[in-house]
C-alpha cells in the first residue's frame, strides 16, 4: 500500500469524469425521465377524463331512450283517448241523426194527418150537404146553412 502521485492523477480523472457526467449525461437523462413521467401522468388523466365522458354519454343516451319511451307511451295513450272520443262522438252523432230522422218522419206524418184532416174538413160541408140532400131529397142552399156548416167543420 503505497501512496504516490497516482492519487493526484486519480483525483484529476475523477473530477473530469464527474464534470463530464454533470454536463453531458445527467441533465438530458433526467430531463427525458421527467418528460416521460409527465406524458404518463397526462395520459392517465386523459384516460380518466375519457372514461368520465363515456359515462356521461351513456347516461345521456339512457335518458334519451327513457324520454322517447315515455313520449311514445304518451302518444299511444293520446291516440287511444282520441279514438275513444271519435267513437263516442260518432255514437252521439248517430243517435242525434236517428232522433232527427225520427222527428222528421213524425212531423211528416203529422203533416199528412193534418192535410188529410184539412181535406176532410174542407170537404165535410160538401159531404154533409150531399148527405142532407139525400135525406131531404132536396137541395140545400149552401149559403143559407153556411154558418152551421162552418160550426161542424170547426168541431172536427
Amino acid at each position, binding site marked *: 500500500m503505497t501512496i504516490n502521485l497516482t492519487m493526484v492523477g486519480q*483525483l484529476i480523472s475523477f473530477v473530469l469524469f464527474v464534470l463530464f457526467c454533470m454536463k453531458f*449525461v445527467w441533465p438530458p437523462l433526467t430531463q427525458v425521465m421527467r418528460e416521460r413521467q409527465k406524458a404518463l401522468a397526462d395520459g392517465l388523466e386523459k384516460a380518466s377524463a375519457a372514461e368520465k365522458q363515456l359515462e356521461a354519454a351513456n347516461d345521456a343516451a339512457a335518458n334519451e331512450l327513457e324520454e322517447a319511451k315515455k313520449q311514445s307511451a304518451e302518444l299511444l295513450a293520446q291516440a287511444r283517448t282520441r279514438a275513444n272520443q271519435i267513437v263516442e262522438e260518432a255514437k252521439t252523432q248517430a243517435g242525434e241523426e236517428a232522433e232527427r230522422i225520427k222527428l222528421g218522419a213524425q212531423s211528416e206524418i203529422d203533416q199528412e194527418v193534418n192535410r188529410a184532416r184539412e181535406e176532410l174538413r174542407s170537404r165535410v160541408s160538401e159531404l154533409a150537404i150531399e148527405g142532407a140532400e139525400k135525406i131531404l131529397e132536396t137541395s140545400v142552399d149552401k149559403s143559407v146553412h153556411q154558418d152551421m156548416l162552418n160550426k161542424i167543420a170547426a168541431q172536427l
Partner: protein
Amino acid sequence: MQSETQTSSEYIQHHITNLTYGKFPDGSWGIAHSIEEAKAMGFNAIHVDTMFWSISLGVVFCALFYWATRNLKAGVPGTLQNVCEMAVEFVEDNIRQVFGTRPNVIIGPLSLTILVWVFLMNLMDLIPVDFIPALAAMAGIHFMKVVPSTDPNATLAMALGVFFLVMYYNIKMKGPVNFTLGLFTHPIDHWAAAPFNFLLEMVDLIAKPLSHGLRLFGNMYAGEMIFILIALLPFYAQWALSLPWAIFHILIISLQAFVFMILTIVYLTQAHETGDH
C-alpha cells in the same frame, strides 16, 4: 499461474505490485523492473496500470451514457437508454431518501459517476487473476494490476474528492464563522471543552474520507487476495473455490459500489445540515 521458478510468496508479491513509472533514486525517470525498484521510488511515482484501467473504465462509462443521450426518447426507450435510466433512477431514489429534495446540481452526477465507475472498476475483479497479467507479460510488461479499486490511491483519491466537496458545502451552507465555531462547540457546548471538542471534531472530519476510501480498498483488496490464493491451487481444483467466490463477489462488487455512493450522499447531507445537532 505459478511458474516453476517462483515461490508462492513471490507469486503473490508479483500480483500485488503495480506497474510503476517514477523517479529512480539516481534522479532519472523510468519504469520499475522489480518490486524493490518500485518501492524505492516513494511518492514520485505513478501506477500506470491503475491509471490506465481506471481512465479506460471511466471513458467507457462516459461514452456509454453519452451515447445513450444521443437519441433519447420520451416514449418507449431502447435497451441502452433503459439501462442508463435505471441507473439514474436508482441514484435519484437514494438521493431523495437521504439528501431530500434540496436543490443541488452536483450530487446527482457525482453519485452516478461514483456508482458506475466504482462498479466497473470492481467488475475487473471477476476477470481471472492471471488472464490480463499473462497477456501483458507476453507483451513484455512485467507488472499488471487490473483492478483499480484495489489500489488505495484510486479509492482515497475519490474519497478526497468527496471530502473537498464536503468541506466546500460545510463552509457554504454554515458560513465560515459558524463552521469554525462548530468545530469548537460540538459535542460539548462549554468554553472549557473547546480544545477537546476541536480534537474530536478533527478526528471525525479526517476519519470520514479515510474510512470512506479505505473501506472500498480493503474489501476489494481482500477479495482480490483470495482470488490470488485460489489461483495457487492445482489447476484442476481451482474451480471448486473460485466459482463460489466469484459468484459471491458479484454481490460484493455491487454492494461496495453502492456503499461508496451512499456514503458520499450521507456526507454531503451532513454538510448541508445547518441546524443544531
